[in-house]
Structure formats: C-alpha cells, structure tokens
C-alpha cells in the first residue's frame, strides 16, 4: 500500500469527521475531557505523595542523612550534582538538667541560619524563637520543657554524663512537631558552644526536585569511606515509604477503575459512532472497497479523532495541572492532624511522563479496540444486508 492510497483514505476519514460535525465534536469533547481529567487526577495523586515526602524530609532529616562523617570532610564535598543543600550537625548525647530533674537528650549543634534556610522545624516553634549563632541558647521540645518544668528565658544545664562539667543554656524557644521521634529526645543549639565540636558529624542533605534519591546515596557510598554512613529517607522513614507505596497501589487501583470506566465509555461511544454510520460503509463496500481498506478507513477515523482529542486533552490537563501547581491546593483542613503533613497541607500537583502518556494511550487503544467488532461486522457482513438495514 503506497502513501498515495493512505493519503486518499486519510482525506476521506478527515472529510467524514469534518462533515459529521456534531457527532465528531461531542465524541471528541468526551475523549478530551476524559484525558484531561485523568491527567489532572494523576498529577494530583503524585502531588499528594510529593507533599508527604516534602513535609517529612524538610522538617529535619533531608532526603539523605549522613552519619559518622569525618571532621575533615566538609559539607562542600557532599554538594555533588543534584544536591541542593547540606546542613552540618554535631550530635551530642547527654542529659539536660534543671534542679534535680534530668532528661536524656541528643543536643544538635548546628548553624541556625542553615537550619532556618533548609529545614522547616522553625515553623513548628510554638513559643519563643530559634537560638542565635554564637550564643548559649537552646531550642527544645514542649515535651522536654514540660518534663523539666521550664519555660522561655529560663536556664538549664547540659552535661555529657553525670560527672562531666555542665554547660549552661538559656531557653529561647520550644517546638512541637507531632512526631514522637523529634518531640521527645531532641534539642538544638548553635555550634561552637559545646567542647569537642570538631568531632564526627552528621548531615541533612537536601536534593533538587526530580533527583532520584537512591542514585545520590549510591554515589556517596562509592565516593566516601565505609565509616561514613548514608541513608535515604526510604530507609530512615520506612513507614512513609510504605505509605507512599500503599498510595501508589491504591492510586493504581483507582486509576485502573477510572480508566476502565472511561475506556468502556469511549469504547461504547465509538461502537455507536461506527454503527450509526454503517450505511456509509455498506455504500463504499458496494463500490469495491476491500476489507483491508474498510478496516483502514474506520481505524483512521477513530485514530484521527482520538489523536486530535487527546492532543487537546493533554494540553488541557497540562494547563490545569500547571495552574493548580502555581497556586497550590490547600488541604490543611484535612491534614492538620496528620504527621506526614506536619509542615504544610498544601499540595502541588506534579506531572510525570506516566501521567502524560497513559491517559491518551488508553483512550486511543480502547477506541481502536472498540472499532474491531463493528469493522468485522462491516467486513464480514453481506453488503446487501448492510444496505438493507438503512
């Protein structure tokens, strides 16, 4: 079959669609809206997962956490391609003391400016403010402040063990995240207040959008000594990982059901569309159009309409997702007690290649599959019977 003949059938199919205006417009709109809605829903689901990850990693740990890093390893060396920021932290395990009360704590010494710029813990401060650099100030959780019976502006001591000399801190702020791990045993102070601050350190590493976290971890493990440990948020927060996997499974099931319903709708519409025009196919058959050419004509009509409608649907889906991602969808009312939305309930829909190609592929595929039965009806049926059905 040469290109001239395909061109001829393409022209006939185009004329058919163009001049069956109302049917074409209604059917195209149905496909267009289905595709755009599916693309938007898909981007919304990805956005919800992103929001949970963003909330969880931005609060404290980063996308990758480095542990047991040598003193001579600088944060700059960890800033490899794909890394947005590295926050250096020195973990000091010991006891907080006030009068006769003691509470075990991991006191994190880190630069307040780095913490405020890259993490969101400061947004969870319920009273007071973040400690200032160079001052013996401390930020601790509401839980610890209640256990020690202290408030903002009061002083406490930190000691590494009961016999070591204490360092006195003034409380400048208390926070509450709603996450036990952060709310019970952590406190924050500026660097260089405690002795031995040049010991091994840990890092909260933040990645740029769209960077695969496991790739970064693999590259760190290849590049740095075995003493240094790097863990992705997948390893640090297996519960979140599971929740996201669960979300993907449930999203896939919902998507499958929605796609299935859309596909049945599209298929039925195309079957009706072809059967409605059975007479026209009977006429061309009586003029000596071969079974292959009839199949080609129907496939071109269905394909052409689907392609045009899908292009419109993808464009509309992209526009809807982009508009909503520039505004953000505030779901705070539904997430305020959810620890995976501890920082913000705003969801930013995100398009992925999957969400862009699957809906149009499903529409096109099901449209073409739907055309098989009516095509067989035309090809195998006796022309006289088809024409008699006028």
């Amino acid at each position, binding site marked *: 079959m040469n290109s*001239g*003949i395909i061109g*001829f059938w393409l022209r*006939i199919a185009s*004329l*058919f669609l*163009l*001049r*069956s205006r109302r049917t074409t417009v209604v059917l195209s709109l149905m496909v267009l809206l289905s595709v755009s809605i599916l693309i938007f829903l898909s981007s919304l689901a990805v956005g919800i997962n992103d929001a949970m990850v963003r909330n969880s990693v931005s609060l404290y740990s980063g996308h990758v956490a480095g542990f047991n890093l040598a003193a001579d390893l600088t944060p700059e060396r960890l800033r490899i391609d794909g890394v947005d920021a590295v926050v250096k932290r020195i973990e000091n395990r010991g006891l907080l003391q006030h009068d006769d009360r003691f509470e075990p704590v991991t006191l994190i010494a880190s630069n307040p400016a780095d913490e405020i710029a890259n993490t969101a813990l400061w947004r969870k401060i319920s009273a007071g403010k973040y400690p200032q650099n160079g001052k013996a100030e401390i930020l601790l959780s509401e839980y610890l402040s209640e256990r020690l019976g202290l408030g903002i502006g009061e002083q406490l001591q930190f000691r590494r063990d009961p016999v070591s000399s204490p360092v006195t801190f003034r409380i400048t702020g208390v926070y509450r995240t709603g996450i036990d791990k952060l709310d019970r045993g952590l406190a924050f102070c500026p660097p260089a207040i405690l002795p031995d601050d040049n010991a091994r350190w840990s890092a909260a590493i933040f990645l740029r959008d769209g960077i695969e976290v496991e790739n970064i971890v693999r590259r760190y493990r290849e590049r740095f000594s075995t003493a240094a440990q790097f863990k992705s948020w997948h390893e640090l927060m297996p519960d979140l990982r599971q929740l996201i996997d669960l979300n993907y499974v449930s999203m896939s099931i919902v998507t499958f059901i929605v796609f299935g319903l859309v596909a049945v709708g599209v298929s039925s519409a195309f079957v009706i569309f072809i059967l409605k025009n059975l*007479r*026209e196919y009977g*006429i*061309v*058959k*009586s*003029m*000596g*159009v*071969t*079974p*292959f*050419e009839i199949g080609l004509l129907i496939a071109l009509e269905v394909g052409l309409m689907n392609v045009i409608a899908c292009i419109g649907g993808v464009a509309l889906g992209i526009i809807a997702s982009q508009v909503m991602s520039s505004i953000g969808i505030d779901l705070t009312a539904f997430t305020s007690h959810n620890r995976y939305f501890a920082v913000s309930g705003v969801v930013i829909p995100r398009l992925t290649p999957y969400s862009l190609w699957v809906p149009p592929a499903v529409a096109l595929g099901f449209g073409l599959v739907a055309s098989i039965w009516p095509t067989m009806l035309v*090809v195998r049926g*006796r*022309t*006289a*019977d088809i*024409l008699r059905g*006028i």
Partner: protein
Amino acid sequence: MIRVQEIGKAYRSGRRQVEALDEVSCTVQQGETLAVVGKSGSGKTTLLNCIGGLERPDSGRIACLGENIHELSRRALSMFQREHLGFVFQFGNLLSYLTVHENIEFPLALNRVPRRERDLRVSALLERIGLGNSARALPGELSGGEVQRISFARAIAHRPQILLADEPTASLDSQTAHDLVQLMLDVVRDQAASLIVTTHDPVVIELTDSIMHLRDGKVVEESRTTVL
C-alpha cells in the same frame, strides 16, 4: 457479458422459508440492456444484488465478464466490483459526507485514476447530467432527482463494463426519468457496457433491448421486444 445460470436464493422469514429466486437464468451481452420487471417482492433487487456480488446465491452460477464472481475471494470480488461494476441504487446512496464532486470522484480514486484526469472526468460528467453548478453541494442539499443523477454519474465515472440499476427512476418525475434512462442507454452504447435495470416504469421498459418478468422469484416471461 453477464451469464446467470439457474440461481436460487431463499430467505428465512420467521418460521417461513421464502424463495426469493428460483432457478433464474438470463444472459446479457456487451452493449445490451435488460429490464427486470415484476411486483414488489418478486426478487428483482435480490437478482441484481446477486449479479453485483452484494449477496451470494444459494445455488446456480453467475459469470460476469467470464469470472464466476461468487468463487472469488473477498478481496478479488472487491477489485472486480471497483473495476468492472457500476451500481445505481433506488435512493441514490450517496456518501452523505462527500460533496457531489467527491462522490463522483470516489470510484475514480479507487481505481487510481490520476487526479487531473479525475477532475476532468467529473466536470464532464456533471455537465452531462446538467449539474455543473452543484459540484460543491452536499447530498443533503439536493433534490431526489439530482441525487439520482449524481448516483448515476458516480456509477459510470470509472467506465464500468457492467451497469446495474435498481429502480433508478422510482423517485423521479416522468421527464427526469426519461432523460436519465436515455442518458444511461447512451452511456451503455458508447461504452459497449451491459445494463440490467429493475423497474416498474414503462418509460424504462420501452427503451431496453429485452425484458424479463419475475413473479415470486421465478421467470414467467422473457422477451426481446419493447412490448410485454
């Protein structure tokens, strides 16, 4: 030449078996015309459909231009139809989404006639049927008589050797019917084609070479005169 030999065709209508054609035979030479007459339900259209390959007879044999068309594969039958057959249907059966020009051009394009020649032939045909100004009209914008003339132009555009017309004048006034039949006969003689036309119309019957009368699927009379 068309040679129909003892063809039979039965339909099931509920529990009843209806004999649409019962051992019907006829022969039409090139350049000859045959009118098939009979009441509604006598089997005229079924005979025409069988000869044109639109349906298959239960028994008998139909040879068109030496080909036993019901022994051809689907594709070979389609190729035979597009090259050698022209069909004029009772109600025109134009493709509603193509203009008058595109409808007549369709069989030419199927037979891969070059575009320039297609345009020339279509224009000439439109002039011949008196619809030179309607080339861009869609079938829905035309009268019954115009549709029928275009259906006829489409049937002869690719210069088929066999022309089959199923009551082509049924929806026309007598003058238009006469003009159309005369045009059909002129084309048939010019192209040395064979024409089989089913009709009730005395105008058509008078102008054909021979007549075959069907009743209940059986041939009851054959004649080569213009009077039954």
